């Protein structure tokens, strides 16, 4: 993610979620690619877990060939093997059905695959993500994913109709998120959940304070003052564009932005001191616009009137 502020990064996946406190929060719906990637990762993890536990149980049982013979016999060893076999059946059932449940019910609301992809599930109405939601969305995963896959594998290519049916079934559910705005899969609709991007945003130093203090120490001799007419030229949009330029480290863009602003307001006293000139302009423009905000006046950009 870039350092660009959220409000300037509007994409088609941005939504507004209202928390129970009534705060409107901008959220970003997870991209379909991230979700597909997360699912692949989780399937690999499940496969590895099943493989690992199967091998562990087999090594306890002492090899596959001896295994089936012993299960049939009525010896003590047979009973132990029976028990191991039961454990195996239960483990398979749990890995298939409880893997997603376990992780999504945890405090992080995400499976390991989702965490690696930087996404998580949440309640669509802004309320609490409840256990029932997680259960509902994961029960449906069985019908969306595992059943058609098993059906596909058992149908084989030779039975054309069954293969077609299974493929169609699989595709309908896999493509389901493509056909609604929020990328909901069938399980999300049943549960009232959706998958969101996990936000990451560091708090950057306050523009007008940290640098202002520095400037005061380094070069106390130059002060810029802009009068009201010079500040009235620009609005909030330009202010935030200027903030981005100042936070960026590129001197070239500072130079060109200085040229633009200086030409617009008809001043040229910031020559060779462009950054400080712009910082002063930024601080005073923001002070002016924020004062206006308190009075209920907002100026969105340079084209709009204050009103």
């Amino acid at each position: 993610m870039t350092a660009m502020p959220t409000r300037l990064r509007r994409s088609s996946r941005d939504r507004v979620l209202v928390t129970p406190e009534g705060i409107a929060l901008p959220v970003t719906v997870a991209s379909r690619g991230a979700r597909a990637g997360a699912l692949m990762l989780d399937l690999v993890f499940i496969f590895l877990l099943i493989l690992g536990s199967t091998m562990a149980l087999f090594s306890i049982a002492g090899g596959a060939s001896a295994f089936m013979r012993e299960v049939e016999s009525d010896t003590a060893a047979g009973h132990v093997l029976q028990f191991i076999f039961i454990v195996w059946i239960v483990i398979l059932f749990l890995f298939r059905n409880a893997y997603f449940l376990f992780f999504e019910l945890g405090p992080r609301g995400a499976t390991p695959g989702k965490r690696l992809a930087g996404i998580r599930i949440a309640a669509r109405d802004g309320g609490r993500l409840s256990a029932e939601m997680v259960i509902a969305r994961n029960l449906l995963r069985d019908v969306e994913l595992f059943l058609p896959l098993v059906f596909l594998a058992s149908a084989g290519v030779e039975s054309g109709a069954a293969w077609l049916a299974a493929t169609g079934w699989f595709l309908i559910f896999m493509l389901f998120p493509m056909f609604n705005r929020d990328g909901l899969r069938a399980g999300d609709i049943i549960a009232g959940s959706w998958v969101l991007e996990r936000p990451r945003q560091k708090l950057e130093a306050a523009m007008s304070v940290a640098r202002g203090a520095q400037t005061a120490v380094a070069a106390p001799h130059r002060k810029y003052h802009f009068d009201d007419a010079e500040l009235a030229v620009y609005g909030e949009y330009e202010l935030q564009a200027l903030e981005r330029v100042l936070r960026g480290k590129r001197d070239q863009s500072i130079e060109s932005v200085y040229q633009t602003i200086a030409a617009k307001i008809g001043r040229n006293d910031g020559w060779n001191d462009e950054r400080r000139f712009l910082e002063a302009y930024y601080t005073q423009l923001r002070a002016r616009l924020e004062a206006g905000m308190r009075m209920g006046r907002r100026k969105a950009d340079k084209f709009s009137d204050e009103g």
Partner: protein
Amino acid sequence: MTATLDAIESAALRSDRFRLEREADWKRLEAIVTRMEKGRIRGISDEDLPALPGLYRTVASSLSIARETSLDAATLAYLEALVQRAWFVVYGPRTSLWEWFRGFLGGGWSAAVRAIWVDILIAFAVMVAGTAVGWLLVSHDPEWYFALVPKQFGDARVPGASAEALKATIFGNSGQNGMSVFAAQLFSNNAQVSILAFALGFAFGVPSLLLLVHNMAVLGAMLWLYNGAGLTTDFAGWIAVHGTTEIFAILLAGAAGLHIGRSLAFPGRRPVLQATAQAGRRAALVMAGVVLMLVVAALLEGFARQLVDETAGRFAIGGSMLLIWLGYFFAFRGNDGHAASRDTPR
């Protein structure tokens, strides 16, 4: 601290002073949230964990104020992301699995079952019809038997089999070994069938009903077979041991699927998505119970049926199981499911 105070004093803008005065709270919330996101709840100090909801509200109100008074895009973006992260934590799944399970058994489950009684009635009618269809089809043309009942190698249960051969399939298996493995397999299998019956409700409930018809038609066909050999009562007892639990569970699964399908097709006055989500959560509760019932059914089928080798005893077990389930679902009121969401005080 003095550095912060100096900074607050030297801050030219009112919005920057606002930010500097509250930054400590924001950072504290961020530290707690970061640790919880990493799954280290135990690493959080005793003062911090109870402070989380309060800090969340403080920072959320900071965001509201900042939106009205500040044009510092970086601060706004940071606050929005922080409030969202804290919201995930504060409104994430909070009940432990155990606590949820207690509320579930203590009334949440039976309340959910009662809530879908209409669907249960429909599913029940469909199952009775399915049994009749199976019987009628097979009595009309025994070839249907092979279409309905999955073929198993060396299975004695085929049309034309002698009464002795059929009797042998329902009595005298008490010495059989490997029953526990059989029970585990049955459970895994039946659980998958009922999850299917539930999940297919998504297609307006129609496939759920078809699945119920198919499953019960198999039963009807077998009933016809044993009836022909004069073993109706014995067969019914053989089925009843686990059947009252298992068929009940499949009935509930089909009803849960139907419940979702109905709310999709007829959402009433609510928006479709909201109606479906409500139905889905209710149905999910029912389904969690269905899996539990299937564990009981598999144990009964794997053990009780083999150990009790006579019809009267089998009826006694199956009948009392049925009474227990009916009593729990329709007579037991419990806490009406409020324990399942105890974290929201009444």
